């Protein structure tokens, strides 16, 4: 029985990527924005599992990016519903899935400044499966109410809104989002954490079933795909991440 200890135990990044790959599901096109190595891992894992489908567009990549019309093509695609899955994070995320990527405090003299909205002010509305991803799970990031609504979690009925958040993945757990109720629900807790941990470190209220399952770790086959197929692909745009997590060295971008 003791021999069951795996030779290469699953790393946190691998667990999160596999959770996200499951959320991606059976779709045609997954796009991944800047500075998102774990969602990129998930998208490439989904593609490796699907033997080439879904199409994956890593916006920073040359190889894993089929766009030929410049930066706007992704947004034009998304506007037509041709991007099924996208990922966003938030400096702050609140219980109604409003996200803040701009600043905290008075806008003209902020206390904290984040990089900015990137495409969130648009993609959050039009991509059907928008997955929120934020590794830091704390009361600093998961707040009761965001101070600057960079993009709202839900919209009034008359606002064109074919897309929006379906889930929030953090280093501690997976929340699903109910657009009608405008609330998160705790779907599973990652190994090593408890429901109490989640309550303690979450600044907003959320629903939860009486019995919250533990997040399933990736299968040995998935781990192998991530380490052998996905990791070298990642190294092109996330050399530091690929080296730190998978021990893979980056090659030049050609």
């Amino acid at each position: 029985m003791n021999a069951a200890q795996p030779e290469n135990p699953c790393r946190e990044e691998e667990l999160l990527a596999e959770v996200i790959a499951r959320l991606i599901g059976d779709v045609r096109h997954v796009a991944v924005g800047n500075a998102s190595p774990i969602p990129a891992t998930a998208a490439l894992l989904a593609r490796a599992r699907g033997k080439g489908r879904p199409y994956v567009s890593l916006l920073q990549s040359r190889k894993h990016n089929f766009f030929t019309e410049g930066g706007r093509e992704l947004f034009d695609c998304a506007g037509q519903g041709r991007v099924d899955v996208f990922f966003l994070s938030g400096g702050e995320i609140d219980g109604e899935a409003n996200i803040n990527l701009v600043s905290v405090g008075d806008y003209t003299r902020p206390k904290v400044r984040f990089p900015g909205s990137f495409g969130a002010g648009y993609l959050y509305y039009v991509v059907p499966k928008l997955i929120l991803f934020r590794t830091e799970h704390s009361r600093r990031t998961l707040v009761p109410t965001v101070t600057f609504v960079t993009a709202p979690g839900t919209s009034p009925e008359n606002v064109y809104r074919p897309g929006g958040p379906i889930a929030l993945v953090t280093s501690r757990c997976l929340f699903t989002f109910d657009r009608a109720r405008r609330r998160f629900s705790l779907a599973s807790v990652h190994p090593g954490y408890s429901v109490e941990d989640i309550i303690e470190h979450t600044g907003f209220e959320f629903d939860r079933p009486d019995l919250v399952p533990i997040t399933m770790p990736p299968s040995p086959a998935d781990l192998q795909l991530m380490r052998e197929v996905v990791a070298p692909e990642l190294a092109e745009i996330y050399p530091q991440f690929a080296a730190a997590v998978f021990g893979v060295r980056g090659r030049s971008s050609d």
Partner: protein
Amino acid sequence: MGQTMLFPLEEALAPIVDGCVLAVPREVAGAPMAATRALIRRKVRRLHLVAVPTSSLQADLLIGAGCVETLETSAVSLGEFGLAPRFTAAVIAGIVKMKEATCPALHAALQAAEKGTPFMSLRGLVGSDILEVRPDWKVIDNPFGQNDPIVLVPALKPDVALIHAPMADNIGNVWIGRQRELATMAHAAAKTVVTVETIYDGNLLADPVLAAGTLPGFYIETIAVATNGCWPLSLPDHYSADLEHLADYAQLAATPEGFARYLEQFVYERRAA
């Protein structure tokens, strides 16, 4: 075709005057870094910098060096190397006036300018606080629909677009490949200044394979050769980013003193990259 557009770098940058609206591309499309360092050395001031639609080291350097009065963009970040420290400090100190955007809005505003039309409509944004800080963006009721609010962004016509490309020919045509946003920027801007890795021997428009990825000289004001001109950033398909240098930058630029040392060493010293 007597008139040459080819100049030494400093002279090619002459159209970028103090106070102008300057559009620059995101890192993935090739950021003209040699030109950026030359502008800092020239002490260009009061730029309205439009980073299309985001920026990294380029905007951070220009802001830290005191060249930027207004910044119009969707985000500035050093990616894997974290927050852009000079951008962050300048916005918190209120030194730089922000015109907050979201990526497709900048693309749309430039497309309106390239079509010569006053505005473009765009989905999304309704209910975002970005609209609160962008009073020049309007929400109207879709005239072809019913009770359907939609955002309009005004055309954005930069005074100058500054881009970097793999090559240009002797008559001013510039090969941009599939970086089509560079074409949109050049179409929209009053003038376009280009740095290139190398000069192509021949007419880029004469070869149908190259012509499709070529920006005609018609749109171009000046060209300068700047070999390795994106360093320390990458020129996709040509060379990779200098990761060690970028890590050093992130560390140095965390303080004003460190940033000043960086400028001294890598910008004013005119390091041959």
